[in-house]
């Protein structure tokens, strides 16, 4: 695949988005690895949705077995390299480190994991399948994001045939299109998918299999179907002026600069929302050259869905936060050529806990670009086409242990099931489901 090279050399993107967690050098990595206590049944391992054996891979770094360390990681999490970069480790493995209870810095697990994975790639990224023999049974995965890739990789590892159908021209899902570039480069995401392809997983791009006809064809051709479709487009800013060209939703804004070479941004940017995607967009806007980035949220910081660390880092970088602020109109210039400001009202929580707008509180924040980041919509149309699929509140209902949906032919994992969490959650869903599907295939084919 040549796509992996496609974005390698965008020097301006690389220069504008230096890595937020630079790699550890060999000596620092060993020193850090030696700090690890090697806890039994370690809390960091339990906290990781993919249950990477953290003390084991860290011990291997300390002992100079970097390949063994990387294979330990990959055994639990095929996307261990991107997870090392994008995981909110302070609320996962590092947040669970026992050193928090001993007044010591937790082990830098994320950076150590990256150290092992970097060595794996330097070494030629050689990965063998667990089962060399081909086994009867084939599965289809819809969507080439982390959940599907993880599912397909584990199926293939065990000798089954796996085909991934993807609408877009590139695999990786949000890892390629949606993760802030200072955390994970699209090229690194594509390199990781290439590893999965090297196991023998088949990828078909530009394939929309969302119609009823296409789905029933898949049902005939494959033993089981895994839905790793994620979520759909972002919610629109439903106010006057909300459809102006100067209003760009956060995921499009991020995908544009990451994979479309669009390195332009407004001079004064207003981001609407206070989730992790909103923060990613705000920080990217600063890196792309915006002079002023403001985040508007109708509640306050205690209600935001962004992680505390992300929020603090954005503030440190110069993003300004406006709490209790609800946009009501995007004000455009008379000739409609550009956005001039965003009109807002103040909000407050009444005694019944309901949010309400304050009368006579209108005010305008000057800006020339508005980035709404107020959540993604579920892919309801697609889900309706899957026969007998139970969906609750936009989320596919599954058995947590196996990933099986109400239609026994279909399994699902990742954002379409959990409503939008982290890459590592999607990887865990995919892996857990693959183990269950593999057992079913053994029964099915003997």
């Amino acid at each position, binding site marked *: 695949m040549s796509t992996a090279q496609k974005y390698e050399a965008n020097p301006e993107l690389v220069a504008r988005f230096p890595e937020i967690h630079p790699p550890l050098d060999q000596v620092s990595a*060993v*020193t850090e690895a*030696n700090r690890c*206590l*090697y*806890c*039994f*049944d370690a*809390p960091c*391992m*339990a*906290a*990781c*949705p993919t*249950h990477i054996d953290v003390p084991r891979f860290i011990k291997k770094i*300390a002992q100079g077995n970097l390949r063994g360390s990387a294979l330990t990681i990959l055994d639990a999490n095929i996307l261990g390299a991107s997870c090392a970069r994008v995981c*909110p480790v302070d*609320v*996962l493995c590092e947040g669970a480190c*026992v*050193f*928090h*209870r*001993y007044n010591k810095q937790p082990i830098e697990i994320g950076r150590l994991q990256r150290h092992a994975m970097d060595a794996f790639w330097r070494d030629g990224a050689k990965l063998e399948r667990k089962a060399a023999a081909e086994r009867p049974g084939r599965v289809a995965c819809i969507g080439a994001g982390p959940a599907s890739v993880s599912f397909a990789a584990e199926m293939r590892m065990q000798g089954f045939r796996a085909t991934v159908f993807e609408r877009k021209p590139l695999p990786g899902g949000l890892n390629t299109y949606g993760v802030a570039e200072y955390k994970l480069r699209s090229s690194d995401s594509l390199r990781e998918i290439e590893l999965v392809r090297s196991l023998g997983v088949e990828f078909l791009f530009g394939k929309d299999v969302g119609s009823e006809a296409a789905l029933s064809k898949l049902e005939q051709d494959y033993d089981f179907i895994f839905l790793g479709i994620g979520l759909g487009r972002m919610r629109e800013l439903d106010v006057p002026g909300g459809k102006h060209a100067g209003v760009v939703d956060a995921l499009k804004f991020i995908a544009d600069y990451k994979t479309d070479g669009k390195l332009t941004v407004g001079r004064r940017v207003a981001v609407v929302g206070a989730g992790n995607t909103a923060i990613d967009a705000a920080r990217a806007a600063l890196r792309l050259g915006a002079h002023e980035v403001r985040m508007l949220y109708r509640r306050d910081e205690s*209600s*935001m*869905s*962004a*992680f*505390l660390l992300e929020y603090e880092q954005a503030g440190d970088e110069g993003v300004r936060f406006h709490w209790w602020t609800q946009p009501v109109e995007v004000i455009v210039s008379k000739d409609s050529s550009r956005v001039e400001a965003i009109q807002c009202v103040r909000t407050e929580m009444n005694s019944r806990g309901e949010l309400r707008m304050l009368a006579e509180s209108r005010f305008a924040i000057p800006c020339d670009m508005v980035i709404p980041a107020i959540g993604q919509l579920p892919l309801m149309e697609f889900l309706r086409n899957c026969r007998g699929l139970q969906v609750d509140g936009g989320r596919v209902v599954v058995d*947590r*242990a196996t990933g099986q949906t109400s239609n026994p032919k279909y399994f699902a994992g990742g954002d379409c099931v*959990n*409503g939008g*969490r*982290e890459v*590592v*959650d999607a990887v*865990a869903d995919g892996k*857990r489901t693959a183990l269950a599907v593999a057992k079913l295939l053994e029964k099915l084919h003997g």
Partner: protein
Amino acid sequence: MAEKNFTPDLSVMFAGKIYSPNPFWLASAPPTNCGEQVMRAFDAGWGGAVWKTVGDPIVNVSSRYSSIDWNGQRMMGLNNIELITDRPLEVNLREISEVKKRYPKHAVIASLMVESKREAWHKIVQQTEDAGADGLELNFGCPHGMSERGMGSAVGQVPEYTQMITEWVKEKARTPVLVKLTPNISDIRVVARAAKRGGADGLSAINTINSITGIDLDTFVPRPNVDGKSSHGGYCGPAVKPIALNLVQQVQGDAEASLPLSGIGGISDWRDAAEFLLLGCSNVQVCTAVMHYGYRIVEDMADGLANWMRGKRFARIADFQGKSLRNVQEWKHLNLNYKIVARIHEEKCIGCELCYTACWDGAHQCIHLDRVGPNGGERMTPAMHEAISKKSIAMTLIPKLDHAPTGNGSEPYATPLARIPRVDEDECVGCNLCALVCPVESCITMEQVETGLAAQSWAQRMGDASNPARKCD
């Protein structure tokens, strides 16, 4: 009892004749290679120096040292294949004279090694004493290179040679004579006794231990690498301290061997020094720690020792010298009816469970993870605990969507009760292992429990034929 703010006297008179302002001497090694070094060392605070061994000129190889690092710590142990001084004898003698003139109150000991001829020994004794040395240390310990030529440990491993050469030296010497002992022998007391019979005034122990520190896994050549080959060397540094302490105790606990002893072996700080003094040494010698950090380390050796002595109300070194010797006994005299058990101070536990896995795999399976959960009563193995964790489903908690897992009020400590182990005191044998592996200071303590039995040693039990325990043990 001394007053609260008294200044302890650190000075030592070794073998009744060699004065030094404190018990810290530099061992015969690279840090005492020349006069310029020794004078800087005295300026830094060292009380004495044993000059790098003088004798007939030799030629050294490069490289010469290799080390053992452990868990990120450099030079836990050091190995060398360097020989005695490679400088002309007359240069060493001239510099010894100069140092003694400038530093009359510091101890300068000449370490000697010549071929095993009476005349050669008489000559070198005369020359070094004429130069002004306060004492002589006979290097019968060097384990590499020189031993192939019939010197160093080749002498120290044969009691008859040790005694004979000591006698030759004593025929001529006017200053105290110390014999430096090699640890590379099955019973160090035999050679110590021979030195004493030969008339030695004191001993130094231990010299370095035969070692190969490691092998380069790419070239397959052991370290240090000398043009693709290596040779065994002498091991020293913090790693050898326990071995040195034991050998010091063996010598000082033996009436036929015991003499004023200069303690050597992995001494890096004042605590190490105090331990050697407590086992009967009159002073200590240091090398590796200086090679690692420089002469400056002596400042805290003196300061730390003085502060400890003040706290213990010891006015001078002699007040505690040898105080621990009586506490080292043969195993058969230890009390079999003394019982301690591990107590986990759960408010300090951080939940690493190292005590649990150590007790299950390395001790007596008496620490359990059964504080919480449905498996009360059923004993779970480590593998069962791990399997449960691996099957658990975890997910990233989003602040807005999920409640934080802590703060539900039912957990008494920051560490979940499920991760705090429990000691089965009835099964605990009091081995100490859990307390040794616990990373938290004072989290696991070993507490004495009353057995209701009078103290009884193995020797007493075996001597008492009426005791039924005799048959079944």
